[in-house]
């Protein structure tokens, strides 16, 4: 409901923020206030001023700027947003897809957001059926065990600890004040442990078809259990699905994620897709010091040199790089293809991705495996 004390002229601007929320932009009440104040301040001389005020105060993320502008035009100019998706670019380049240009943010509570937008979108996107999850139990146990067993490193933040290299002088002085200037205890500081970030890359090409659904369910469990994680799918394209997988409800999350991916069961251009990943500095940065897991059979149809080069660069950034292939389930498996052979020296592990249980075990044992 509109606040009756607001002047009538403010109504379209408040309505615009409501429209934004319904389309999945996070707009806080204080941002609406700032937006109105900004328009008052600039004096709505032209629509451009209003647009710039909206950009500054409502802060749409740059990758969703186009969707934001389309909504702005639709609301203030009455134009219908057409052709928001760019035309299919040149097939030579692997296309990078962000989490859906006109998409939605995962709602804070996953049952419903104000507009019920997530639920309807998820229903509309049920293009793909996810089979009955018989590994539910395995994944549940995995989720519970993971936070304790993720690889850690020493962080740079210091916290109070029983032992440590530095004195906590602040607590020393407080103790001294309590005890008439006498010091009885010397509390110490130590560096806090931090869990390493995870980067998961899932191959969704035709040759991996049988395992793709299970891999996405595994990804969902991983996203729910780890705090710093990024998930991408590769096929003929690179798609970021982290946000979709953050939804708590598994079916909803998987349906949303599969709605984002447009290259299901297609060809494989692993090398180009990984190059595309490395070419976006914001994505490439997520591999730094991370546990990198690539779920792929490595059956590259493109140039094996592109793949080798990309894996080499990825290995240089990652803390641990494992290539997990369902083909390794066969005990007699040896990497035969030129591409897989040439990346072998850069991998930390070539592991078995034959079943969800193997995947889970591999991730849980990473910390020890690397220490050994």
């Amino acid at each position: 409901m509109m606040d009756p004390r607001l002047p009538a002229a403010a109504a379209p601007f408040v309505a615009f923020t409501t429209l934004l929320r319904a389309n999945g932009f996070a707009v806080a009440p204080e941002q609406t206030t700032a937006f109105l104040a900004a328009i008052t301040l600039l004096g709505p001389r032209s629509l451009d001023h209003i647009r710039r005020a909206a950009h500054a105060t409502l802060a749409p993320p740059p990758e969703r700027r186009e969707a934001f502008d389309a909504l702005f035009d639709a609301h203030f100019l009455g134009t219908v947003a057409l052709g928001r998706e760019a035309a299919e670019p040149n097939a030579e380049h692997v296309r990078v897809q962000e989490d859906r240009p006109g998409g939605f943010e995962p709602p804070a509570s996953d049952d419903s957001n104000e507009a019920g937008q997530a639920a309807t979108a998820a229903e509309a996107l049920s293009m793909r059926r996810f089979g009955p999850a018989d590994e539910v139990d395995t994944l549940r146990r995995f989720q519970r065990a993971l936070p304790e067993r993720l690889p850690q490193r020493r962080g740079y933040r210091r916290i109070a600890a029983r032992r440590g290299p530095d004195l906590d002088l602040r607590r020393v002085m407080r103790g001294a004040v309590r005890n008439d200037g006498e010091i009885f205890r010397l509390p110490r500081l130590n560096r806090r442990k931090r869990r390493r970030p995870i980067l998961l890359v899932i191959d969704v090409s035709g040759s991996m078809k049988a395992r793709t659904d299970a891999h996405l369910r595994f990804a969902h469990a991983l996203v729910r259990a780890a705090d710093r994680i990024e998930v991408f799918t590769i096929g003929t394209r690179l798609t970021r699905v982290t946000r979709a997988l953050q939804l708590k409800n598994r079916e909803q999350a998987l349906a949303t994620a599969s709605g984002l991916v447009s290259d299901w069961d297609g060809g494989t251009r692993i090398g180009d897709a990984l190059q595309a990943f490395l070419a976006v500095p914001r994505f490439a940065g997520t591999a730094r010091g991370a546990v990198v897991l690539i779920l792929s059979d490595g059956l590259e149809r493109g140039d094996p040199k592109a793949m080798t080069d990309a894996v080499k660069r990825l290995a240089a950034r990652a803390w641990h790089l494992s290539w997990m292939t369902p083909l390794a389930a066969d005990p007699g498996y040896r990497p035969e293809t030129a591409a897989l052979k040439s990346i072998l020296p850069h991998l930390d592990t070539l592991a078995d991705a034959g079943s969800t249980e193997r995947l889970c075990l591999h991730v849980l044992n990473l910390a020890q495996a690397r220490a050994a």
Partner: protein
Amino acid sequence: MVVRSKVAGIDSPEALAHALTSAFYLADDGLATAAYLGLALGKPLLLEGAPGVGKTEAAKALAGVLGRRLMRLQCYEGIDAAAALYEWNYPRQMLAIRQAGDKPVDIYRDEFLIERPMLQVLRSPDSTVLLLDEIDRSDHEFEALLLEFLSDFTISIPERGTLSARERPVVILTSNRTRELHEALRRRCVYHFIGYPAPEREAQIIMLRASSVAEDTARAVVAAVGRLRREPLTKPPGIAEAVDWAEAATVLAKGGATWPDAFKRSIGVAIKDEEDNVHIAPRLDAIITGAAA
């Protein structure tokens, strides 16, 4: 919300853009509007963009325009209250306790307080600008620490109580977007994303910042840099690199090198990654001759 329509004699985005130009910074309409709104609404200004597009320069120019001292706080993982807000002077506290003997002594007075940049800005908001640089390098704990400061401009010191600013200080945050900032932080700020400028504007920026560079050189560099940014490079050249490249090529040309050669030999100031160099090497000649044409 306290709204000041006029800050330091600046009463519109256009006036601010004009003032910034005289401080050798060319701001586009979006940046001028966001910066003006930040000043007028008393909110922090959050600038995001790729490395080298001039986020830190914008903060410096803004401080120059306002005639205030820039307090720069470089963020890093583990940056904490002791580095950003305040710290107690422990040796002096110790000494005070020892000297006091039997008499009671207050070791949490001002004389024992060491002011770090954020507290300094809080105490003299009318003469300083706070720059929280590369906030994405800090961790979640520091972001949480910032929330109180950015919304109310207060700092709580457990031993002393809450200190608040007499007036709203000017605060600028920059981020390279290596990670996503928390929503709570973003919504407290006025936001602007600085993209790569249009070729025309970038040529102007180069000539403004490097006065020795001729217009033709600036245009050629802008064209070449534009092509380089379309390549899948680990570290695409920013505006700073474009300025350096134009300057470096000019210096080499004055030393007698021919133009395409001067560009090629000074590529090291534009491309600063060995893999990028290897990637671009086969096409470099075509890019440079194409740009100079």
